[in-house]
């Protein structure tokens, strides 16, 4: 928003009606509120996971540094890079360089898509080794290993892994579609539309900054 100070004591009057007290339009404020609310959803999920983990005397730490952690680190890098391209898109849009903005959004969508693809590969790999939402499938690679190493562990590792990364992946997926719509309509939208799509995308990135250490790094295999 572009309202610059015209009157000396403008700040005192901002809350008196007829103005936007935060100097922020409806849609941006609405997006911020949505983000606050969505952050509560993710917090509740992560707290639930932490609760279960803290209440168990054993918890599987099955991710070897190579390849699991390296693989998820690469995913993280793609997500971070896409956050950077998104902020560049917003910057280009602010300068009314629409074609550049569209290209940057395209790069962001690419980053998001790569993230989803890598994530799917990882999921199918883990499913193939026997990890399931209800625990581990009987007779699988994991089942034998886990029974030896973590006999007391509750069957909650797969549950929390799939629930939390699944919810996050759902957000990335909707984010890519949302960005696609914004990119296609960039000739008709206003800057604020691009900016709030950026807010959403950065939020998805931000959530990953907590999912990655809590789900992956805290589950690194200490013996390999």
């Amino acid at each position, binding site marked *: 928003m*572009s309202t610059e100070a015209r009157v000396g004591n403008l700040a005192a009057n*901002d809350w008196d009606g007829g103005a936007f*007290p*935060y*100097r*922020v339009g409806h849609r941006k404020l609405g997006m*911020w509120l949505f983000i*606050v609310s969505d*952050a*509560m959803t993710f*917090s*509740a999920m992560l*707290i639930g996971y*932490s*609760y*279960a983990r*803290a*209440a*168990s*005397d054993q918890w599987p730490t099955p991710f070897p*540094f190579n390849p699991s*952690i390296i693989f998820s*680190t690469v995913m*993280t*890098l793609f997500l*971070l890079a896409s*956050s*950077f391209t998104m*902020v*560049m898109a*917003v*910057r280009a849009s*602010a*300068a*009314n360089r*629409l074609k550049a903005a*569209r290209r940057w959004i395209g790069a962001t969508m690419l980053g998001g898509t790569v993230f989803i693809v890598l994530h799917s590969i990882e999921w199918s790999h883990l499913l193939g080794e026997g990890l399931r939402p209800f625990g581990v499938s009987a007779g699988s690679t994991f089942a034998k290993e886990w029974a030896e190493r973590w006999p007391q562990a509750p069957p909650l590792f797969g549950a929390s892994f799939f629930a939390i990364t699944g919810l996050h992946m759902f957000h990335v997926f909707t984010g890519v579609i949302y960005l696609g719509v914004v990119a*296609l309509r*960039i*000739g*008709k*939208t*206003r*800057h604020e539309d691009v*900016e709030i799509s*950026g*807010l959403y995308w*950065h*939020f998805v*990135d*931000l959530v990953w*900054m*907590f999912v*990655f*250490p*809590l789900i992956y*790094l*805290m589950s*690194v295999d*200490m013996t390999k």
Partner: protein
Amino acid sequence: MAQPSIRDVFQKSDLILMGVCVVLAAGFLLLTAKNAASAGNFLTIDSLFFTAVCLLLALTFIAVPALTMRARGVHPFAVPEELPPARAAEHVHFEGGTRLFGNVLLGLLGLTVVEVVLAYIKIHDLRIFLTILMGLSLVKAALIVAYFMHLKFERLSLVVTLVPTLVVCICLLFIVFPDSFRTLKQRTNRPTAAATTGEPE
């Protein structure tokens, strides 16, 4: 001169026909996706043939409206040469440039690398590991919120509305942990519970 909009150029019947084409194209794409998802082994002759045919049909159907629009000079998703009036009226002031955002990205990458290195050298006390990780993640989150989400350049009132609300609510959720530790204690005491019946915790 602004781009002509679709409704200026086409009649209702044109639009309906084009809509039918788009729906058909989308339907074939869906068939392709369904085949890819449900086929056990995707790389068979049958499956590939089915995919190729479906994609070809989808392309054919989408080509009709696309070419028609192009012929009539309508580009529904084109970036206009001249700025639309709503945008031209805006004077957006946007702080930060490539250098700043590049630095932030470098910082985020650096912190991520530190986290991963910690996982590599393996800190066996998980509590310490968790504390460091959460500390680093909070810094990363703060960087993202402040620079990428541009909160640093918003008014202070917005910051003090959003951030404390969220922090208080998330911290409130931490009240569940005493129960978690209690459950752990009860679980780990289980084998010896019989021996110490009646003893208060």
